[in-house]
């Protein structure tokens, strides 16, 4: 153990992991909608702030290229249905993206209103206003044309897979989604923080997407376990891989399997699926290792579930965190501590149970490389969440006749999202340059669907 320069006496704490830390009222308040739906009046006022820019920067910044200026103008003229159609034509998950996109680093960051006012048009909330209106109305935006007779297997029912499936279905093709989990939706259903997508929105959006027809979903179908890539290539005219990143990066420390050391993504999935969130076990002192969105999501939700002290610990500074400034502030205003420039060193155990963790202070050397110093400190903890990134489970893609070329541990694709195999496309988090954003995954699916459609027509 190094110099215990601050922090508590980690050996002396008694692990305290318990459920029922919050009242039913607190539970309902804490997990309420983070950004409630704008009222018609609020939407009208906000829409009027849009300047309808030429070649609008927001549209350029959107990974799916939504015509933001047009849809906002449609809202301001009372044509909310048309606004939603404008959104969905570029981004079939416009509803979820309106909730989870880091708009502060995308469309809203480049809004020209920032320049003089420092307040962009609230594009995300207007997008939600339009798409929620459409979904509530039950109106259809897309009509499925005549059956093309072509079949496509989409492996993975997350944002990329659903986007591709819809893109293919609206061109008349027949899609089978093979989904490993019990429900489709991927990270929309199992990943994102609860307060960003309340009222079962992820499933409602899936239902809206599937409503076009021509898409069949088979759940409980895991690639490499229940079927192989060879199987689907033999059976379908084309394949889209949207398998996400099923593996979680490890800390590489002794005791990582001990009680109290958990994967953040697993806990978030459990939280999202919980019938009664108050029954979930929560630590009294929680440490979160990592600086991305998942780290923020688990840190904030631990706090909302009643943890007394929650600290995010990150190896570098706040500026280097993947979580945006907005997300960091969200964490801090919910009472999460953020500690930076600290690398995990040791997990402390007492009787096989976690009691704390030791970190080494880090800094950058003159060449900008991270240096782990010998200066250490310890923090008490009953629970440590690992949120230092996920990885592709590549085994099902590397063996046999259907080996897919990888690059840096992810699937290599060209700009049309074609893999090294002529009849296989890929998109979402599992591909190289995947941005870990729902909106980027939707774009991958959309682009791939176009390319697959061209391929299928040529093959006809």
């Amino acid at each position, binding site marked *: 153990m190094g110099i215990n320069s601050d922090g508590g006496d980690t050996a002396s704490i008694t692990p305290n992991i318990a459920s029922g830390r919050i009242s039913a009222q607190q539970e309902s308040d804490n997990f309420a909608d983070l950004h409630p739906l704008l009222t018609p009046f609020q939407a009208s006022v906000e829409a*009027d702030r849009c300047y309808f820019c030429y070649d609008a920067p927001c549209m350029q910044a959107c990974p799916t290229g939504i015509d933001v200026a047009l849809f906002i103008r449609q809202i301001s003229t009372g044509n909310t249905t048309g606004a939603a159609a404008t959104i969905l034509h570029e981004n079939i998950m416009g509803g979820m993206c309106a909730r989870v996109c880091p708009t502060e680093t995308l469309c809203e960051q480049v809004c020209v209103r920032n320049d003089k006012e420092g307040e962009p048009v609230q594009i995300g909330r207007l997008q939600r206003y339009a798409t929620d209106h459409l979904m509530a109305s039950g109106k259809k935006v897309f009509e499925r044309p005549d059956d093309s007779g072509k079949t496509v297997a989409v492996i993975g029912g997350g944002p990329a897979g659903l986007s591709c499936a819809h893109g293919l279905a609206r061109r008349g093709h027949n899609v089978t989604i093979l989904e490993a989990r019990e429900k489709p939706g991927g990270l929309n259903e199992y990943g994102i923080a609860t307060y960003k997508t309340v009222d079962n929105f992820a499933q409602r959006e899936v239902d809206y997407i599937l409503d076009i027809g021509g898409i069949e979903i088979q759940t409980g179908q895991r690639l490499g376990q229940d079927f192989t890539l060879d199987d689907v290539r033999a059976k379908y005219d084309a394949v889209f891989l949207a398998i996400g990143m099923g593996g979680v990066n490890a800390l590489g420390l002794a005791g990582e399997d001990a009680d109290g050391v958990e994967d953040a993504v697993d806990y978030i999935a459990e939280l999202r699926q919980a019938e009664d969130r108050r029954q979930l076990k929560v630590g009294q002192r929680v440490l979160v290792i990592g600086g991305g969105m998942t780290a923020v999501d688990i840190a904030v939700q631990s706090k909302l579930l009643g943890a007394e002290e929650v600290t995010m610990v990150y190896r570098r500074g706040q500026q280097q965190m993947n979580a945006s400034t907005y997300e960091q502030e969200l964490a801090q205003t919910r009472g999460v501590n953020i500690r930076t420039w600290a690398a995990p060193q040791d997990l402390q155990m007492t009787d096989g149970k976690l009691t704390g963790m030791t970190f080494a202070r880090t800094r950058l050397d003159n060449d900008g490389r991270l240096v782990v110093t010998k200066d250490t400190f310890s923090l008490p903890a009953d629970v440590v969440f690992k949120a230092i990134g996920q990885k592709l489970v590549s085994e099902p893609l590397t063996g046999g006749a259907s080996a897919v070329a990888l690059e840096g541990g992810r699937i290599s694709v060209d700009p049309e999202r074609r893999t090294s195999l002529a009849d296989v496309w890929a998109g979402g988090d599992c591909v190289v340059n995947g941005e870990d954003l729902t909106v980027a995954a939707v774009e991958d699916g959309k682009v791939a669907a176009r390319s697959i459609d061209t391929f299928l027509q040529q093959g006809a």
Partner: protein
Amino acid sequence: MADLRADFLGIKSPNPFWLASAPPTDREVNVTRAFKAGWGGVVWKTLGLDPHVVNINGPRYGAIHGSDRSLAGFNNIELISDRPLGINLQEIKAVKQAWPDRAVVVSLMVPCDEASWQGILPLVEATGADGVELNFGCPHGMSERGMGSAVGQVPEYIEMVARWCKKHTRMPVIVKLTPNITDVRFPARAAKAGAADAVSLINTINSIVGVDLDQMAPMPTTDGKGSHGGYCGPAVKPIAMNMVAEIARDPETHGLPISGIGGISQWRDAVEFMTLGAGNVQVCTAAMVYGFKIVEELVDGMKTWMDDKGYERIDQFVGAAVPNISDWQHLNLNYVVKAKINQDLCIKCGRCHIACEDTSHQAITHTVNGERRFEVMDDECVGCNLCAITCPVEGCITLEQMTAGVDPRTKLPISGTYANWTTHPNNPQAVPVE
């Protein structure tokens, strides 16, 4: 310290802000509240003969809204006072006695015969009112009965009625003009010919303010039907100011006192009307939207502006802009401006570019050296002002005069001389320059 006292036809008021004849001046309670709030005068809502008229029991007003429900234009289908004449006269008398320093002018509308006017004028005079305003303007309802704008649209009637009134009362007579005519100078000349002391304008403009697309009927809608109403509010101000200016610069009516009306909502509007020749102003819509308290802003705004500019009395700026109202043909064709975009203020919305590119002269870039950047190309710019109007940042785009060199668009040297259309070689009727 600026002195806002006004003297219009000998009618004195502590400031030049009167409430126009309309719902805000319908009764004693309203007018008393207005005077308490600080209004300089009122024109009492139009009196007619008994039996009094009746109003519909449905909506009387319609509106055009801008962003965030700000009111751009307003219309009404209300008629003249729907109370007995005697009650109105009693109340006018009481108000004038209680507020001797304020102007109380009474608006009148009776049938177009001398006996009717001869009958009502002494009754009004007996209240102690300061003057009368002849309502020849209302375009809805009453006009169907041969009154209001039905009179105001016929200069001969205006002259005739004005003369009757001057004959039967010692009070100053103001003729209120309708804008629902082709050339406002003719009714104004008629009023002057009839010896009226002043004109006031504009009354409201014939309008359908909207269509209810479910009922397929004009708004405001009464039981599935709608009739045209009188349009007013900020949207009509430019129309009103032009009409005021036309009368002020017409050699036949130049010098005829004018009471300016039409969309006056703040001090600047009032000052603008007055520089175009209005001796005072009348306000209605703004008060109907915000209440009487706006007079505080009107008074203080005008006072502050006068102090800043060194005006001590309002007559020092009344009509000040009239000499600069010109016919198009006399505008200087040798005056050349180019738009300039201040890059430090530019927020890069691109509206100037697309407006110019799509609808004008293709004179603004959208990229410079591969970067999003909006710059004016002087060799295409005609100085039309569209870019400055579309720009959301005030002062970002300005029109700068070229005072030397060659206009890169026309390749003609910038001349310091004045030249107009009357002598231009392209003008078939040009008079050769000596």
